[in-house]
């Protein structure tokens, strides 16, 4: 564990690398995109990933999981990012299993975690309500009704929201939009009466949905975590999600860097390799340096998560802010250094840029996380 991978982790990373390269390379993602696949990922692939143990990688053994640790999950996510693989790993494992582990009741955990680990249940968390990430801005109302609640409102940018079997909804039980207090997590069925879901056609061709809740009735058993204290519970789940997504972005940025580096060593102009021009050399060296720094922040944050450090929130924001910027830089430079060919749909670099822009924005942009980091550290 830690900043150098141990033997088990190295084996995991290698097998993830081989798995994604063989079963879900960029061409597979392209196919999903070009055929307008309705699910947005391959269910067969997800079953295969579950067989590898990855759907349950952070789930304790008592719930049918592998209990391998969070850092293991980040290694899988990194390889997934490298291949632009579409899978419900972020929605179902980072968010869904993450939330159950953090805030689920014993009954909820017993019922759902084994199904997640088996790859039989898709989950997600519905947070955003407008075009910028800010959980406190939740207005979706949960009104007490008998011994249950009635939920009404709208969520957007819900990852895998159109196919999720269970959705954890961040709702307002008291206070006003903008307050951190007064938020509560509810577990609902994706197909519950009063729920309508619309898949959004996103820049990165990945799954996000707009979800409307119209008088959705739930029992008190649907509550996850403390009533009115959902913000703090969710924050811990989101720390995981931020670090995990940073790992995915790190993989994508590394892939772009590698293909660009190769191109610098292959494309000739003016009778020489373009990689012989110092202005490009320095920028390649800088990208490599930023990637090294990015790797450190992701590994440190993942390790801290496994060790239960009390600095996780800061480290998660550091990772998300830093890797978002690096990924933005590397994808920009990737296109520029490829020249005209980098602008074509046929070349992969553009696909990575599209995924990067959406991921940069998911769970808060670099700017959001710099602000959060400053808040957490009293700057």
């Amino acid at each position: 564990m830690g900043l150098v991978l141990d033997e088990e982790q190295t084996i995991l990373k290698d097998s993830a690398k081989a798995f994604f390269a063989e079963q879900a390379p960029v061409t597979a993602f392209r196919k999903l995109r070009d055929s307008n696949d309705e699910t947005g990922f391959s269910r067969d692939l997800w079953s295969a990933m579950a067989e590898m143990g990855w759907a349950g990688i952070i789930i304790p053994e008592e719930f049918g999981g592998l209990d391998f640790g969070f850092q293991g999950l980040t290694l899988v996510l990194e390889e997934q990012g490298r291949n632009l693989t579409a899978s419900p790993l972020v929605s179902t494992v980072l968010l869904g299993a993450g939330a159950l582990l953090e805030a689920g009741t014993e009954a909820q955990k017993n019922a759902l975690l084994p199904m997640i680990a088996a790859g039989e249940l898709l989950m997600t968390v519905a947070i955003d309500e407008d075009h910028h990430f800010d959980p406190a801005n939740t207005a979706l109302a949960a009104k007490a009704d008998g011994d249950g609640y009635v939920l009404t409102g709208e969520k957007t940018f819900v990852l895998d929201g159109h196919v999720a079997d269970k959705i954890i909804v961040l709702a307002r039980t008291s206070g006003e939009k903008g307050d951190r207090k007064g938020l509560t997590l509810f577990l609902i069925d994706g197909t519950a009466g009063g729920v309508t879901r619309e898949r959004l056609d996103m820049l990165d061709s990945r799954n996000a949905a707009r979800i409307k809740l119209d008088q959705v009735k739930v029992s008190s058993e649907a509550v996850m975590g403390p009533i009115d204290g959902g913000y703090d519970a969710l924050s811990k789940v989101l720390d995981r999600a931020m670090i995990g997504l940073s790992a995915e972005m790190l993989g994508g940025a590394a892939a772009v860097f590698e293909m660009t580096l190769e191109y610098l060593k292959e494309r000739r102009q003016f009778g020489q390799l373009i990689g012989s021009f110092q202005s490009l050399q320095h920028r390649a060296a800088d990208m490599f340096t930023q990637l090294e720094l990015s790797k450190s922040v992701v590994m440190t944050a993942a390790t801290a998560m496994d060790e239960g450090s009390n600095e996780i929130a800061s480290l998660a924001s550091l990772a998300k802010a830093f890797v978002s910027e690096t990924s933005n830089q590397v994808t920009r430079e990737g296109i520029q250094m490829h020249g005209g060919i980098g602008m074509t749909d046929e070349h992969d670099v553009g696909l990575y840029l599209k995924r990067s822009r959406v991921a940069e924005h998911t769970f808060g942009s670099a700017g959001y996380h710099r602000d959060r980091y400053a808040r957490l550290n009293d700057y």
Partner: protein
Amino acid sequence: MSDLDVFREEVRAWLVENCPPSMRTPMGNDEDVVWGGRKANYKNPEAKLWLDRMGAKGWTAPTWPKEYGGGGLSKEEASVLGQELGRINARPALASFGLWMLGPVLLEYATDEQLKEHLPPIVRGEIRWCQGYSEPGAGSDLAGLQTRAVLEGDEYVINGQKVWTSYADKADAIFCLVRTDTSTKHEGISFLLIDMDQAGVTTKPIKLISGNSPFCETFLDDARTPARNLIGRLNGGWEIAKKLLQHERTNISAGGFGAGGRSAALEEVAKEYLGAEGGKIADAVKRDEVVRHKMLERAFAQTLKRMSAESKAGEVSPASSIIKYVAAEMNKDRMELLVEIMGLQALGWSGDYFSAEGLATTRGMLRSKANSIEGGTTEVNLNVIAKRVLGLRDHQ
């Protein structure tokens, strides 16, 4: 009243009469741009009317001589015309590689006969031109081009491939750099005009990351063109090619790659998407970024003005690389900033959920990535500044 004031009055009166009402509204999207040519398809008849009227006056090419269909205006008069068009928010009557790139070099290098043949149809928007420069193996190193032209009788026969040819599938003719001597590099290039309406020329659109297909592969297989379509000297094309690039860099970049004019002001978008407090952009960090960008735009506009005041009408220099470099990077940054400001709204690909403005921003951000590649990359332009303007040399 000075002569210029008289001229202003005349222009104003003419515009009142002649600029159709729908041509005084902001353009909706790229489809509203009028490129002319034989294959043009005018959705709005007023666009055609506006082009015909401006073309007949020669005001699509205000400073070109009257005998070649131009407006025959002095630099000062042309600037008055520009101001008056701007005052009523008139749309450009014609967007054209013929106006921006080919015409200016023809005026410098072509014979009187060639000018009479080619300029008037450009002014009137009858012939649409595309630019046959880049090849698979010759991008930044343009002089490495391999497309061959051989004189057979009174025709050149051309064989080779061009790539990234913008709008080749919609153009009527192509101005092409060809190799007419294989024994040397720069001194073996000639500048040829070729009609594309012939069996020897085929085009294949290439899709961009933004989803559009504005450029093509262009194949020349025994394409033919009359020998009189050689511009300048045989093997003297490189000088013309470079000159044309300077016009391209000046004219296209000066328009900020279509930014600004066609979309809402950055600060207004920021207030709408980030909220406003007391009329100010609520997010202090983004406000600073917006201001930084606004100041850069202003500095750029002032530089354009200063450079144009320093030069004669239609004259260009290697300093055009400064304009191209700044405009390209500025527009790319602007689009990234817009995406950040609009968040999820500018991360959609299609569908009703996203505003038209949001979707245009997403696609625009993607398209803008080409600004620092097309018309000479940022690196190449910085090299031009370093070498040709500053006199810095490679290892000596």
